[in-house]
Structure formats: C-alpha cells, structure tokens
C-alpha cells in the first residue's frame, strides 16, 4: 500500500527533480549552445542565446573527417562490450551460483584492479602492444577496453544473477539441462534486463574512455576522443570549435541513452526493491 502524498508535495518533488536534472545536464547543454556561437561570442562571456551560426561545425568537418572516428568509436565500444559479456556471463554465473570461500576475495581483487592509476602501467602496456604489433589497431584497443571494463561487467552481472533464485536453475538441471543450456536458455533470458543495462552502461564507458584510446592509437584506430582532442589549442581561440566537436562526439551516445533510458533505469534499479 502506498502512502498518501499530497499534490503539493508531489509538485515540489517534481520541480526539485527537474532542477537537479538541469543542473547535471547544464554543462552539456552549454557545450551545445556554445557550438552554435562564433569564437568571438564564445569568449565574450556567459550567454544562453547563440547567434546560431554553423561555422564551427563547417570548420570542424573541414579539418578532420568525423565519420572515420565515429566508425572506430562504434566498433571499439560495441566490440569490447560484447567480448566482455562473453567472458563475464560464465564468470558471474560461477560466482553467483557456485561460490567458494574465495569468491568474495576474487570479486574484491577484480575491483581493486580498477583502483590502479592507468598511467602507472602505460609503459609496460605500450611495450606489450608494440611487440605484439597492436599499436594503433582496433583489435588491440578492443581487447584493452574489454579488459578495463571487465571487472565492472562481472560485478554488475553478479549482482543481477544473485537476484535470480537458484532453485530455477536447479529445476532446469533436474530436467536434464546441460550447463550450456542452463546458462543460455534459462539464466540469460531471465537476466535480460540486467544484461541489457550492463551492456548499455559499458558501451557508454567504452565510448568515453579517453586515456588508452588516446595513447594507444595514432590514426587507424583513433575514436572520437582523439577527434575531440585535436581541437584544443595552446595558442588561439577554439572554444566554439571544441564545443562543436564535443557535440558531434557525444550526440550518438546521447541519442542512444535517450531511447534506451527505460532499460537503463530498469536495469540499474533491478534488484534494488525487494
């Protein structure tokens, strides 16, 4: 039974929620506004109404081809996420349904790898990539992004899987399902919301990853992060151009997030309410 809430309180909460949302979204909104200004307007100070020029977009496109970077971003983010799921689903299954005394330690250890500053392993990784011929290759970077996001993928899936009653899997086993069938036909369909939100979140993480994508690529495998980085300048004004490049780079992921927000929210709160 839900508590009775007055219309006034409801209204207040709605306004508050919108304000918080606007506050969080404002930097992105202002970037988009700035992208429609001239460089002179961009530096002139705070102004929410742009002149509406498309000059920055034209200059950005003339200087660098957006499409090439976009394709790389799609390949890297989707590829690394799919690859991570293939590894993480069995790993999360074993931890959720066949735990040992050490499972918790292993989970913590996996998470602890995320605590290491990436710069600390830059040179060793760079040498490995160099010797394997993986520098500036999509394969190498897909592997790299998969590995750095893997702990999060496993953790997320593990928490979702724990919400699924083990008895259902047991029942399928009693019916003679093999391990493969149990994971593919019983567990996975039940965990679809969880898997979907894990996938979406990791695509976003991989899309925005700007340490390794900048440092392990030059031209062939460079994604949109490199596209943005090429518009910052130590000498000269570039705010409008940089905003245009950023808007172009975040637009696809923003649109994807908008259309899949229901899955994202359902997945993120999955298991939170008992």
């Amino acid at each position, binding site marked *: 039974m839900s508590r009775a809430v007055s219309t006034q309180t409801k209204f207040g909460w709605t306004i508050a929620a919108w304000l918080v949302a606007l506050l969080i979204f404002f930097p992105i909104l202002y970037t988009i506004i700035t992208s429609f200004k001239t460089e002179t307007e961009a530096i002139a100070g705070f102004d929410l109404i742009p002149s509406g020029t498309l000059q920055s977009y034209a200059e950005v496109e003339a200087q660098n081809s957006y499409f090439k970077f976009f394709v790389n971003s799609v390949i890297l983010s989707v590829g690394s996420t799919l690859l991570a799921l293939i590894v993480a689903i069995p790993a999360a299954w074993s931890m959720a349904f066949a735990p040992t005394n050490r499972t918790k330690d292993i989970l913590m250890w996996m998470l602890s790898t995320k605590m290491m500053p990436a710069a600390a392993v830059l040179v060793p990784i760079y*040498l490995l990539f*160099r010797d394997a011929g993986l520098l500036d290759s999509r394969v190498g970077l897909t592997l790299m992004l998969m590995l750095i996001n893997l702990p999060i993928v496993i953790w997320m899936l593990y928490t979702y899987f724990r919400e699924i009653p083990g008895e259902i899997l047991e029942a399928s086993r009693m019916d003679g399902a093999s391990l493969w069938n149990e994971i593919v036909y019983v567990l996975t369909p039940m965990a679809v919301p969880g898997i979907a939100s894990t996938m979406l979140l990791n695509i976003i993480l991989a899309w925005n990853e700007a340490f390794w994508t900048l440092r392990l690529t030059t*031209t062939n495998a460079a994604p949109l992060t490199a596209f943005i980085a090429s518009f*910052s*300048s130590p000498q000269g*004004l570039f705010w409008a151009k940089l905003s245009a490049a950023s808007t172009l780079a975040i637009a696809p992921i923003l649109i994807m997030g908008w259309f899949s927000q229901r899955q994202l929210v359902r997945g993120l709160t999955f298991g939170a309410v008992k």
Partner: protein
Amino acid sequence: MIRTLILSATASLLAFAAHAETITIATVNNGDMIRMQKLTDDFTSKNPDIELNWVTLEENVLRERVTTDIATKGGQYDVMTIGTYEVPIWAKQNWLLPLDNLGDDYDVADIIPAIAGGLSVDGKLYAAPFYGESSFVMYRKDLFEKAGLTMPDAPTWDFVGEAARKIKADNTDVNGICLRGKAGWGENMAFLTAMSNSFGARWFDENWQPQFDQPEWKETLEFYVNLMKDAGPQGASSNGFNENLALFQQGKCAMWIDATVAASFVTNPTDSTVADKVGFALAPDKGLGKRGNWLWAWSLGIPAGSQKADAAQKFVSWATSKAYLELVASKEGWANVPPGTRTSLYENPEYQKAAPFAKMTLDSINAADPNNPTVKPVPYTGVQFVAIPEFQGLGTTVGQLFSAALAGQMSVDDALAQAQQVSVREMTRSGYIK
C-alpha cells in the same frame, strides 16, 4: 611463362610497396600547423610516392604521447612537432635523428641563429623550426596617448609598472596590464622564468643549488604579485595565453606581455576590437643586460625509431623551407606566413609591409640567448625553462606555488620558501646535488 608471371607480380608488388610509403606526423592544433595540413597537396604532388597521415593532439597530450612512443621506440611517428625544450634533451638521449640531409637548396644558414642554437646539439641540427617566437609587450597606443605616456621601444620594468598603475587608475573598465597566472611550466613559469632573468635571478647556481632563497627571486615575485594586484585583471591566477588573448581582444588590457605570435591575432580585425590600436615594444628589463623575453620554436624532428627517415626528412625539408613560406604567401598572404624562423623573411619588404610587428618580433628573438640566458652563470640552457627532464614536473610544482601567491592564498615569502624546499628535494633525489 610462369617465371614471367612471378617476376611481373613481384615487380608490381614492389612498385606498390614503394608507392604506399606513408609517414605519420604528430602535431599540435595551432593555426600555422592547420594551414600546413591544408597545403600538403603541394608536397604530395612533388613526392607522389609519399602519403601523409596527420595526428593532431592537445599540447600536453601530444608531449606525453610522443614521449612514450619515442622512449619505448614504438615507431608510431615519423615526424614529431616538438619545442625547444625537448630538442636538446632528446638529442642527448639519441632519440632524434640529426637533420643532415635536408637538400641542397634548403639554406640552413638562413635559419635565425638564436633559433638554430636552441635546436642544435654539438653543432648538429636535430629539429627544423616551423615557427619561432619570443615574447614582447603589446600595448594600446590610444590608452597610452590618453594617459600622456610614450612607450619606449625598449621599456624598463619600472616604466611598465608605473604606466600600468596610471592607466588602471584612469580607466574603470581597463586593466593596466594582463600577465599569465595559470600554473604550469609552460604557462606562468614561462613568463616568470623569463622575467626573473631580467631581474638577475636564476633557477640554479653552477652547482645546481636552487636559488629561490636569493633576493633576486624575491624582488621578481614581489614586483609581479604587487603589479597584478594593483593593475591586473580579477582572477588572474587562472589566466593563460588564451584567456589574456580574449581580454586583450575585447579591449580590457592596456598592456600584455606574451608570445610574439599573438601579434597576428590582436591585429586581426575580424577577431580583435582593438586591431588598429596595438603597438609593440621589447620585453622590459632592469638595466642588468638581460630582457624578460623568451624563445620558443615549434619544430619538426624525426624520432630515431622511424623506419621511413628519408621520406620524413623530405617532408621536414619541404615544411620548413623558404619555398614553403612563399607557398603560404601566394595562397593566404604574407601576414599568414609562419614567423620567426628565417632571416630572409624579415628582409622581405612585402612581409615587412604586411606584418607591422615584424621588426619587433625579430629584435625580440635576437635579444634571447638560450645558451647564456641569465645575468649570473648557470649550468643549464633554455631561457624560460631549464633544459633538464625534471623541469616539467618541478616547473609545474613551483608554478602552482607562485600562482597561489598571486591568488593571495599564500605570501610571496612562503611561496619562495616552499619552492626552494621542493627544488632542493627534487634536485637531490635526481642526483644533481651530490
């Protein structure tokens, strides 16, 4: 028959391989570099067997990226855009190839001697300058006239200080002077190190002992902080080149001491509201024989790990040649030619006409001596930096302290004491102080 087939197949493969030589060039997003990318058709039409790949990155990312690649011999780049700070350090590490095959008509002797000196080690050129810069005073002729002041061609710091305070007092919406305050070895420390040279200060004595506890540094930093407090813009501790450029272009600064390359921006009527009111003067001095101006050249070098050194050298030769300057002039006018690299450019009457700041730029460059930068002797080279690998980190740490002093978060004395402490620790740890 089969033999002929194999032979012709091999020949065509070889031809393809020869045709497909691609060199990768790492560069920064500066106007002159972007212009060069647009003009590369001229190079590829003259060298149809070479293709060019460009990687443009933000300066600090580029420096880190390129350093990783060159230190690990990753071989990702064939041409790198580097500055006068990196060249002597990297050349000594054998990370760069000497440029000894730039072609017969390249005319190395035409490169401005101060710039060539900063890019050479043991008389060998390790990078070719693409554009060079010093720093000088840009000032508003109209405001000076209104205040009854005349800017000399070679002002002193005392005059600059008085003029800045007077103009600030006379005008409510104009700052007397705009200077860098944002922390960083290439930001506020570039300016302050060059300034300190003219005050007789130095980073280290002959035995690598840090000198921040000496009166010259105290005088430098006190002068700077007081001047900015009296006549500088609000929030100056977060202003770098671009922020001051924006202020000056909007008419908010009576004086700005910064890179000579800014001259073409502030005199460009499409961006600058004060384009026709700007005058130029040499960086100030204290009468000690050194001026507070720096020397920098964005240059093209070839990493020792490059597999395509010949093609890379051809490109470097093309991009830094006299013919390239003429190419830019023919397409975009003389005012847009990359400045500060060749003596002949400054003798060209067409350039002198198109660029009113030409003479002052050349005089400023010539007034800087990277091999003898300070009043007292020092064990290092570099005007606004110390050409040792540790300087990037140390310079930025000291820059943060000085920026905090400017913001009023600590006193000048505290900032200098802490700067001395961290410098002694770092130099001892690195083995300079035995």
